[in-house]
């Protein structure tokens, strides 16, 4: 795989009062890879991806996406450049239909409303529930809908924040198949606690601890890294 860099963060920093949530992080994403972000609770993973997608303003450092500096770009403009984010806590539009939820993503990128929405629902297996009110879906289906909304944006980079949290094993398998289908057209950055999913899916892994990068490498490298083991066992 030719390593073309899609996203590059340099010396990224964000403190909350005295808490160094993200502290001088250097980070690179290669185009088309599945990259996992792991680390103990409170390591700054969600803050870090929030900086990447613009939900939290950057304190210092730079972010480049697809060759352009996006450090100061507001979140909605980053989405338009192709960075999609799915929320850790499911945030579908609970009072709207499943169709409308996905249609909101499709119409944003100027897709064919009916055809593309149905196709996006088909891809995740929610086509037969298009008319249902999203808030009445089961928890697992809401997680899937959340991912479908991200995918329907047709992003260059899809950031998934703990996508398998609370899913049953069968649903996790469907999820893994889905992620494998979208690469290499879409690059995937994944925050994940389930190590089986991480080791199975990710081509590269970055470990965060106390807001700093502890290690980056292939699943094999990370598994063998003593510092990572210490952080996890000690954390």
């Amino acid at each position, binding site marked *: 795989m030719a390593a073309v860099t899609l996203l590059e963060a340099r010396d990224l920093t964000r403190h909350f009062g005295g808490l160094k949530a993200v502290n001088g992080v250097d980070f690179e994403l290669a185009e088309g890879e599945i990259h996992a972000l792991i680390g103990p609770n409170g390591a700054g993973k969600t803050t870090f991806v929030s900086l990447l997608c613009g939900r939290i303003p950057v304190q210092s450092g730079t972010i480049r996406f697809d060759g352009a500096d996006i450090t100061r770009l507001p979140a*909605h403009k980053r989405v*338009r450049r192709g960075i999609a984010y799915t*929320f850790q806590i499911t945030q579908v539009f609970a009072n*709207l239909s499943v169709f*409308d939820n996905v249609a909101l993503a499709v*119409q*944003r*990128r100027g897709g064919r*409303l009916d055809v593309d929405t149905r196709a996006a629902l088909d891809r995740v297996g929610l086509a037969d529930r298009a008319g249902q009110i999203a808030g009445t879906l089961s928890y697992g289906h809401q997680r899937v809908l959340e991912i479908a*909304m991200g995918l329907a944006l047709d992003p260059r980079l899809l950031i998934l924040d703990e996508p398998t949290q609370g899913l049953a094993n069968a649903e996790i398998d469907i999820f893994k198949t889905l992620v494998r289908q979208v690469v290499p057209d879409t690059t995937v950055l994944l925050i994940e606690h389930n190590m089986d999913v991480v080791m199975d899916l990710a081509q590269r892994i970055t470990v965060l601890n106390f807001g700093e990068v502890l290690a980056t490498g292939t699943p094999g490298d990370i598994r063998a890294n003593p510092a990572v083991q210490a952080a996890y066992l000690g954390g």
Partner: protein
Amino acid sequence: MTLSTRIWALHLAVLAALLAGSVLLPAYHQTNVAKVMVLATYAMGYNIAFGYTGLLSLGHALFFGAGLYGAGLLVQHAGLPAGPALLAGILAGGAMAAAVGLLALRTQGVAFMIVTLMFAQAGYLTILYNTAWTRGEEGIVIAREARMLFGHDLSADLPRYLAAFALFAAGLVVKLWLVRSPTGRVMIALRENEERSRMLGYDPYARKLAALVISGLYAGAAGAAYGLLFGYVGASLASTQYSILPLLWVLLGGAGTVLGPLVGALSMFYLIDYSSAFTTASLLVVGVALVLLVLFAPRGILGTIRERWLKWLP
């Protein structure tokens, strides 16, 4: 019948019933319903901001007043004919909404309510301050000769009713189309979850500003029409009470329903009309209605009907 046909059929039937009122209603009620249709147009605009986009403004009287005075002052002091004055009123409502929105939309929730309230209060006081032009609380009575539209005398019962109907019908059709369009879907998405909408690539500030301007155009149109149809332009019509009334009508009829503002304005108008027979304190009815609505029927009449029976109601 497809869903779309059913929805249009219902709304066109309501419009047909109102049009029939022009020949069926006795004069007294014809004047009342004409007034209700103008006020319901105002409420429809309010509903676009509040019911669909989730912007609870307490300052819409400023936009209504901009239309009222925009048209009224031009007719009175510049001798403009009714048609161009109406257009000027509409634009004044939209422009005022844009100016207020640019600032007020930097805030949210309770702060947004207070900021809009304060801007509207400043507008109301400005009207009182410029007595030479506006004649303050006393207001301006627009002469009959100035109230001619396409050769029809707007001070006569039938032309007035038909003009009010035309305004309301245009407002209703545009609103029905708008809320079922992709733009309307984004407005509703902003109401439901602003952060999620942002992460789908929508700019909340720009979208809310657009909704507020559309809302202001409606309010301006209603204000201008009110002045031209009923011949009175007074400061009380731009007071805080006229910011509260559309909120009340929309809450009563059902926030986020297309026909709710009409249902709310019509029922409230006649409730006050009947109650005035045995109490002078007509605002008591408004107050009690507001409290009872938020306590027991926060979805309003059509909102409850939609929740229980007609799920397809837009």
